[in-house]
């Protein structure tokens, strides 16, 4: 029931003029989970987060935190804290005062306050930095201070608004892992919004993919990756190849499709009511494509493609090929078993139909 989850929302709507930035969103976040909302910029995820923090009010729907209705509770009275995109550390206060600000508002006596500030700084790995100014810290350190400032208040819910966006790549990778550890260590429920699918995948227990103010799919990262529910999720989460064609037959949840270049291939049906003759799009991940010669593994589908170029990126090296005018990416095997690929050489790419997902194409 609603009382078991830290956060539950019901039919949330927020309109700006005629445009609904948040359009009937319902969600349920169990206590102690890392919940991410993933979507491209402009999908309404920041608006949703601001509704949860209380900076904005929903036009319809309810927000419950630990079973308590929050709609009319102002932000300073909600058991919710937020890590802002640009962190919003108070520049006129020291690190210690930044962290102590919330404790002071709760009338925690000074000796106790000092103890808790020191404690939380220890936990985020910045012991003894109380008297520094936020401006003197590095990006990663500031990040941790912003986290500590919220976590010291032991909120029911911690909201994070793409806080890693401003960091450089290396630090971002490191902070991703650290955030996940910190979340486990504190046991606080995190609601994290991001447009970076890798951040969402690595850290989260549950990911909601958001598009145009609605959730397309809410699932654990692996399910999102393997069983995307909509073409948008399939294309947005991870790399994917999109092949267009026409449905020839549907047998036992497997659809046979005639691709635009003429080859007959198969994939699992992902959208209901797929009819013969309908336009369809087949999604197959680069790592599911195998290079094959004339001998095709039993049951596999295959297509022809021409090599355009190879993209070397360590373990993530790929070949870019061309299938009937559409670009196709295939991962290069790491054991060196790939054939020598020269530009314009013809290759044959095959896949297990169970790994491909077929959706009905949007009507043009």
């Amino acid at each position: 029931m609603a009382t078991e989850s830290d956060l539950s929302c019901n039919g949330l709507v927020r309109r700006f003029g005629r445009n609904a930035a948040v359009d009937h969103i319902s969600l349920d976040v169990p206590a102690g989970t890392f919940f991410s909302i993933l979507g491209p910029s402009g999908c309404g995820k920041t608006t949703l987060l601001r509704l949860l923090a209380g900076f904005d009010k929903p036009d319809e729907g309810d927000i419950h935190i630990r079973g308590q209705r929050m709609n009319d509770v102002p932000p300073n009275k909600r058991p919710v804290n937020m890590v802002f995109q640009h962190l919003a550390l108070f520049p006129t206060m020291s690190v210690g005062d930044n962290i102590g600000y919330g404790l002071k508002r709760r009338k925690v006596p000074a000796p106790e306050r000092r103890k808790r500030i020191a404690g939380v700084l220890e936990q985020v790995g910045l012991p003894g930095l109380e008297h520094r100014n936020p401006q003197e810290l590095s990006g990663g350190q500031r990040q941790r201070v912003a986290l500590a400032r919220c976590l010291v208040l032991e909120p029911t819910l911690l909201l994070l608004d793409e806080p890693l966006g401003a960091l450089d790549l290396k630090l971002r990778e490191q902070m991703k892992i650290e955030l996940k550890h910190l979340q486990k260590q504190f046991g606080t429920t995190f609601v994290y919004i991001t447009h970076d699918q890798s951040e969402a995948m690595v850290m989260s227990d549950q990911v909601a993919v958001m598009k145009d103010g609605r959730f397309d799919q809410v699932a654990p990262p692996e399910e999102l990756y393997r069983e995307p529910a909509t073409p948008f999720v399939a294309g947005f989460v991870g790399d994917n190849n999109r092949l267009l064609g026409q449905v020839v037959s549907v047998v036992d949840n497997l659809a046979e499709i005639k691709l635009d270049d003429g080859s007959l291939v198969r994939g699992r049906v992902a959208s209901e009511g797929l009819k013969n003759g309908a336009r369809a799009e087949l999604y197959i991940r680069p790592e599911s494509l195998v290079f094959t010669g004339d001998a095709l593994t039993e049951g596999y589908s295959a297509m022809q493609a021409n090599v355009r170029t190879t993209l070397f990126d360590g373990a993530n090296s790929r070949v870019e090929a061309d299938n009937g005018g559409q670009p196709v990416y295939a991962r290069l095997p790491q054991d060196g078993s790939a054939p020598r690929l020269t530009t314009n050489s013809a290759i044959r790419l095959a896949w297990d139909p169970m790994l491909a997902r077929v959706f009905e194409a949007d009507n043009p």
Partner: protein
Amino acid sequence: MTSSAGRLSLWLLLTPFVLWIVLLVLVPHLQMLRVSFQVRESWDTIAWGVEQYQNFFTESYYWRTFVRTGVMSLFTTLLTLLVAFPIAWYIARMARGRAKGILFMACLIPFWASELVRTYGWMILLRESGLFSSWLQALGWADGPVEMLYNDVAVIIGLVYNGLLFMVVPLVTTLDGMDENLVEAGYDLGGGHGTVLREIIVPWAMPGIISGCIVVFMLTLGSYLTPVLMGGKDSAWFTEQIFTQFITRFNWEQGAALGVLLLVLSSVMVWLGLKLSGQSLRKVMG
């Protein structure tokens, strides 16, 4: 060759500024300082001494006016800050696009007219036969004409009005640069309106507050027209004393001494203000 040409053009660029500083600021002040220590013994002999400064301390009317001017200027500055802060907040944080520009202009437009015209504007409103008086009578709240001019309140109204723009501009500039998220974070972490204002907004705006206060305080302390016109003959503003010494009494030595004292007072107050608020002149003046 190029370096000497560069140096020449630098000097040419600096010349107006240097002339201005030296001829209009430095020379008159040094001259005034010199005159203030001259004691006139007879019509053609002059000795050095501190008689004029002694006069200031022994003649209670001088130093009382001096203290009164200082205290009222401080009060005016504080009042200007209180009036200007909400205006600046609205212009910097709430108004968007065109409204922002229009509001800013609305603050600026009165300053296209001279101080004299602005002061007469207030006099038309406040005098015995003025607008406010006749409104009060029409509403039946007053039996006869009410004189609202020629008292300290009228002087302070006029001075606050004159200082407003110089407080609003630096405040808008600092508040404009504040990250909206800072205020939201202040609320998010449990602060109420008072706390957010006291702990986050005011500390952020401190450079603007101090620079606005310095400018308004100096303007008020050195203003002449407004206290004279709106305060009448009893307004007892220190600049009037200086004017009287120089022009009416033709006692340049005493006038110069009083002028030097006013300069010392304003410098000391600015220095104190900076010290107490922990700001430096460099930070405040950008």
